[in-house]
């Protein structure tokens, strides 16, 4: 019974593909998978847009949208209709072709990235041998579309925003990949399915061997999340759309459905990157312990995805924006060295697997966390104290 619920979508697809004539079966199966992925993640996008506005509202002591439909559930529908009916203004001097292609070049790679994401037990669209590399390769194409958007609008603010976005995305791709390296190294394969396999519950034990339950996994997840925030232009790193400085950055000349496409691209990018984080460190669709295996696998994946989205909304409601040069300094002087240190610690963890004396487990954790803590303390203090930042004490005259 449990198996049936878990595999309900997979069996459904096989059934439907069975009806199609043999010559068409490959196309039908591919079409079904794409349709399912698009359907699920588009509705998730609509839901998260609403949850974000309600979450931010609740943080700011107001109920958030609750006019359209019960608890505002039809708000995404209202937004969608508004986006469709809004006039699509193209500036007079704009470069029409590039202006039109930019949103397409933004959304296409993001949707491609979902091909390798294992959403549930054998529910990954394509299990590529070099899945992680594919993911980063497709992710790298987004910068080009950001430049196209910034350039085509013939607007100075858009140009500033585009240049910022490119600098940010390129300098944060490195920590993103370096943070993923230990997980790939310890799992021994680049394919996402393999990585999830490596984090399964061991034969005898009951607790799953998630990568996050190791010192390097914890640090890796933290680094990965920070880099993912920057890749998706979210909360403390939303420089490209620095509303207060350059209005809406590279999106300033877009309106109507093109703007909605960029919006969709950003959110789907956020889901994709957090999906990868889940697969690498939080055991993809695996349950944390064997006795929890009765819960269907895809529910675990979307629960963890919900956790990531909640964190992103929470950060957006609290933190101010980082300044341009500090953003770069953070990437090159803190995240990259920490990621390299993390790889070293992961290697140490791998080779110390054989220790079997009494406090082995504690010693390995203590050593790992100690090294990482020292590294962070030295780097962060160096980066921070050198500028003389810190809380101040004020004198009073009466």
């Amino acid at each position, binding site marked *: 019974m449990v198996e049936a619920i878990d595999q309900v979508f997979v069996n459904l697809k096989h059934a439907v593909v069975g009806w199609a004539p043999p010559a068409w079966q490959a196309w039908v199966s591919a079409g079904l998978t794409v349709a399912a992925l698009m359907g699920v993640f588009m509705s998730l996008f609509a839901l998260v847009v609403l949850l974000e506005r309600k979450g*931010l509202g609740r*943080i*700011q*002591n*107001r109920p958030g949208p609750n006019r359209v439909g019960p608890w505002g559930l039809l708000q995404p529908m209202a937004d969608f209709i508004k986006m469709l009916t809004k006039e699509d203004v193209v500036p*007079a*001097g*704009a*470069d029409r072709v*590039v202006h039109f292609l930019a949103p397409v070049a933004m959304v296409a790679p993001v949707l491609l990235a979902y091909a390798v994401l294992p959403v549930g037990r054998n529910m990954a669209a394509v299990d590529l041998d070099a899945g992680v590399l594919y993911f980063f390769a497709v992710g790298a194409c987004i910068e080009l579309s950001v430049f196209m958007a910034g*350039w*085509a609008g*013939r607007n*100075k*603010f858009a*140009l*500033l925003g585009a240049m*910022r976005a490119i600098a940010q995305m390129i300098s944060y791709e490195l920590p993103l990949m370096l943070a993923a390296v230990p997980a790939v190294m310890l799992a021994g394969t680049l394919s996402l399915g393999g990585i999830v396999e490596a984090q399964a519950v061991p034969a005898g034990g009951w607790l799953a061997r998630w990568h996050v339950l190791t010192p390097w996994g914890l640090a890796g997840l933290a680094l990965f999340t920070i880099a993912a925030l920057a890749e998706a232009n979210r909360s*403390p790193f*939303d420089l490209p759309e*620095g*509303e*207060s*400085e*350059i*209005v809406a950055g590279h999106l300033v000349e877009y309106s109507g459905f093109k703007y909605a496409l960029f919006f969709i691209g950003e959110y789907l990018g956020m889901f994709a990157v957090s999906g990868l984080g889940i697969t690498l460190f939080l055991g993809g669709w695996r349950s944390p312990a064997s006795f929890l295996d009765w819960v269907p696998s895809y529910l675990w994946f979307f629960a963890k995805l919900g956790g990531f989205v909640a964190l992103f909304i929470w950060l*957006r*409601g*609290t*933190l*101010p*924006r*980082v*300044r*341009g*040069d*500090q953003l770069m300094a953070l990437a090159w002087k803190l995240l990259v060295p920490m990621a390299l240190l993390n790889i070293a610690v992961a290697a140490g963890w791998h080779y110390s697997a054989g220790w079997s004396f009494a406090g082995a487990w504690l010693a390995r954790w203590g050593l790992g966390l100690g090294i990482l803590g020292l590294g962070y303390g030295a780097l962060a203090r160096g980066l*921070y104290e050198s*500028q*003389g*930042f*810190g*809380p*101040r004490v*004020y*004198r*009073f*005259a*009466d």
Partner: protein
Amino acid sequence: MNGGLDERALIGALSTGDLMPESAGAAIEEQRPPDASPSGSATRSPAAESVRGEGEFLEVSLGPHHPSTHGVFRVDVVLDGERVVRLKPVFGYLHRNHEKLGERGSYLAAMPYTDRLDYFCSLTNNWAYALAVEKLAGLEVPERAEYIRVIAAELTRVQNHACLIGFLLQEAGAMGTPIMYAFREREKVLDLFESLTGARMMCNYFRFGGCRCDLPPGWIEQCRRVVAELPRFLDEFENLLATNEILMARTQGVGVLSAALAVNAGVTGPNLRASGVNYDLRKADRYGIYDRFKFRVPLGAHGDVYDRYMIRVLEMRESVAILDQALAGIPEGPILNPRSRLRSFRPRAGEAYGRLEAPKGELGFYLISDGSGSPYRYRIRPPSFINLTVLEDLCVGRLLQDAIVILGGIDIVMGEVDR
């Protein structure tokens, strides 16, 4: 500074940025005035040539329609990459001929217009105008009215500083949360003003020689409740962002205003005290009954945006202390000097300059009376306008993001800058 940036050159410069796509290049050709440089090779615009440093400059005008310029205010910025090379504030979009209007009507008719000067602190504007006219006409103010004036001024200072912190953090990027917390407290104070004067922001409450009407029953208890909740709000703000690493990195060491420059430029108010100069009119001028209350004046050491932010937070705490003492000691009695006349009010000929410590700095009213019903000359010393003159000195050499945060730190309101 390094060469004037005159208006016409800059307008010309704004349209010749040659980073534009090809189709735009052609569009610019026709509009270009005949004497312009030969087409194709766009020479450097005159405005940029007067600036040292190689490479192409980008002239951007922030505003007047821009989300973070505190009202209708334009800043023409010459950027080298993202670094500000030159910055020329352009204002006057909200000029309403306030001073000439003051001379047309009676003394009383000018009072509701003072609400519109700095529309965040209408009661301190009223008090400054009333102070000047009382000096001119030699009217004393009864005890209870003085207490009401101090309470109203300190409440205005609290809600103005709360708004300023909200706007500053909004500019630093914390979208929505700090400004919502600040406005939640401001709403309580505005409700107090509405029950006292009838309007939330446009109070028009003080008259020459006292107040227009007495406190409604139960107002003092309501005021005590609001003041009692303020420290909790200030602690919440302190936890939320005061020690936030990102904010400290964004504001510490940014836009440093040296004490000498501040004094020479005539900067007053929290900006001056953030640079370490101990000058607070409530202590220096001893106007009203401030000498009866015990309160301290916080002083900054670095004069950067973080100090201006913290000085305002600490000043709010001092204002709460004053409010507690004033609410405890308010006596019964008349609220208006019997000799003060409402309609045909003709002070004796002469001149007077009344000033007080408005939340934004030293707000002064200079009046010349020729014995008739309306003032002969009606001049206002606007603190925001004078604080704004140092904007370019603070922003040159910094990034565009810093310039916006510095502008937010100075706390300007265009109603007062343009008058």
